[in-house]
């Protein structure tokens, strides 16, 4: 509760300080706070592209914190005209994400421009941020017949006509996909591309794979000034095979089925007692039988 109160207070105070003029016009906007946008661009192996705007705002102590629930409008620059791509709201980490589906118009320098804006927002001040990136391709080749475990990635730039030219001297990073994220394939996983735009990485041997030794290898070009973020991945059987546990539910004290020892011990102990009981029930029945026959004799 304390934290909530503090945050609320912080928002109110910053809002009041920054937006006194707005407050007079629209009471609702009186709590606006200053925000900044950081834009990034991702292109994946399946050619899906997305843009992520990370919005931050300052809290009372002047520390940057994620701006939650800010509506971000994404535009693409076509000549001088801004066309709206999509809108998205920031999540609790201050991230708003859109999927880019249409072909982006390229400018004179063969790059496209995406503009992210916060406009007429209730919570935050208007702010905008741009990014310019060139179209590029990142391919990954894992030769399954190659015993040397070499992963080769190639970066090419794509011009307006779709013609590809190799990009040299960019740093590629090699990863292996894990359940909740991607992990560097080795401690030193960065390789710089040569003049053919190629980077080769020798994959380590001890990466755990699934039961078939299958792993998913990924290569990334990260935060490149020209091309943004590119990723490609491929599946191979370079991992160590995971031994299949034949009986995941063994007889155990913690298991659903008891160890034989405990069953036998209990059966012997209580089986013995109950056998004796039944013998006694038998004897009691005989006592009764005898009594009944005696009674019959006396009555007849």
């Amino acid at each position, binding site marked *: 509760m304390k934290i909530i109160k503090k945050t609320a207070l912080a928002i109110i105070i910053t809002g009041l300080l920054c937006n006194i003029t707005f407050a007079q016009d629209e009471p609702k906007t009186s709590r606006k706070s200053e925000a900044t946008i950081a834009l990034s661009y991702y292109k994946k192996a*399946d050619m*899906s592209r997305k843009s992520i705007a990370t919005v931050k705002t300052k809290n009372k102590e002047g520390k940057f914190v994620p701006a939650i629930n800010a509506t971000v409008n994404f535009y693409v620059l076509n000549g001088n005209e801004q066309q709206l791509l999509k809108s998205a709201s920031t999540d609790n980490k201050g991230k708003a994400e859109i999927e880019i589906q249409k072909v982006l118009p390229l400018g004179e320098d063969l790059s496209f421009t995406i503009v992210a804006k916060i406009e007429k927002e209730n919570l935050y001040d208007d702010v905008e941020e741009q990014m310019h990136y060139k179209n590029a391709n990142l391919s990954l080749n894992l030769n399954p017949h190659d015993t040397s475990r070499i992963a080769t990635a190639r970066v090419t730039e794509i011009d307006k006509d779709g013609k590809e030219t190799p990009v040299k001297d960019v740093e590629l990073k090699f990863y292996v996909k894990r*359940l909740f*994220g991607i992990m560097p394939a080795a401690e030193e996983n960065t390789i710089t591309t040569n003049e053919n735009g190629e980077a080769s990485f020798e994959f380590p041997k001890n990466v755990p794979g699934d039961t078939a030794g299958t792993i998913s290898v990924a290569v990334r070009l990260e935060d490149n000034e020209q091309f943004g973020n590119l990723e490609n991945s491929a599946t191979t059987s370079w991992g160590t095979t995971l031994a*299949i546990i034949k009986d995941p539910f063994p007889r155990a004290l*913690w298991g*659903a089925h008891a160890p034989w020892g405990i069953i036998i011990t209990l059966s012997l102990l209580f089986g013995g007692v109950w056998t004796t009981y039944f013998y006694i029930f038998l004897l009691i029945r005989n006592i009764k039988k005898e009594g009944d026959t005696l009674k019959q004799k006396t009555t007849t």
Partner: protein
Amino acid sequence: MKEDNIEDESKEAGRRNFLKFGALAAGLAVVGGGLQKAFSEEKETGEKVKVLNTSDGKVYEANTTNLRECNGPRISNEEARKGIPNKKFVMVIDEAKCDGCKKCTDACQEAHFIPPEREWIKVFKMKDSETTAPYFMPKPCFHCDSPLCVKVCPVGATFKRQDGIVLIDNERCIGCRSCMAACPYSTRFFNWSAPGPEEVAAVGNMPYSPERGLPRRMGTVEKCDFCPDMIRQGKMPHCVSGCPMDAIYFGDQNEDAVTNASGVTVKLSQLLEDNGGYRFLEELGTEPRVYYLSAKNRKYPIPDMKDINNVRKGTKPKNMDMENM
């Protein structure tokens, strides 16, 4: 799943709303073959989601249009008891990074509608002895590999799955609380009263599954469950993703990898090796699935032990507030 589940779908609006929230999870009902098909057809429109195939324990990316919603218990009780094959979930908590903000607790409490007096993941202020430095210790369920709680359960209401998770079937639990007495870590809680009206309004109509433990059943035991419902969606437990300090890692021991809230995935064995990884009260032999990293080179001010409300403590020694071990 079964065809008739789809027919039931329109029964309750509340249920439907929940299912929308869990669109990803709904996909889990699709059997493996369907998923692989979805994976291969790349032209499909709609969002791509990561789905953990429960039959082989692999993660696939699938298109939401290929996923069918299904009603009723999405994970059957039988499946929930087996768990995900070829996975061994493991958690690592870095005491050097934990600043005791309790955001993990908050995230967990909110997601599971837990009343404030019981915290599935509780942040302790620890001080092992008078001379050693205090530190924060978030404590979820340890999902022990030799779980005493499971051993003592008379009806198998709490069980250990093949993926290492210890769950409770609240529809089988008789409420004897043997497990609570047996757990050395005070991890288990009892539903002493009926769930509150807010909770009933939110999840009262949900179909029950041991993987969620909701809706709550009065008179049964509950505890941290490592969020198997989230895992099936390819997401990490709420406490992990809710930690602003990246102090909690979660992952699959079979993959030797754990991931924190920022998505940084590291090699589990390396992490434990480099940071003095240990398990709490190892000598008890319960084989916890939660590891701690020693509070070395801490990134936060040392917790203040003065304001601590340690209700029960030994009479002596005076300043030794923490009695563990």
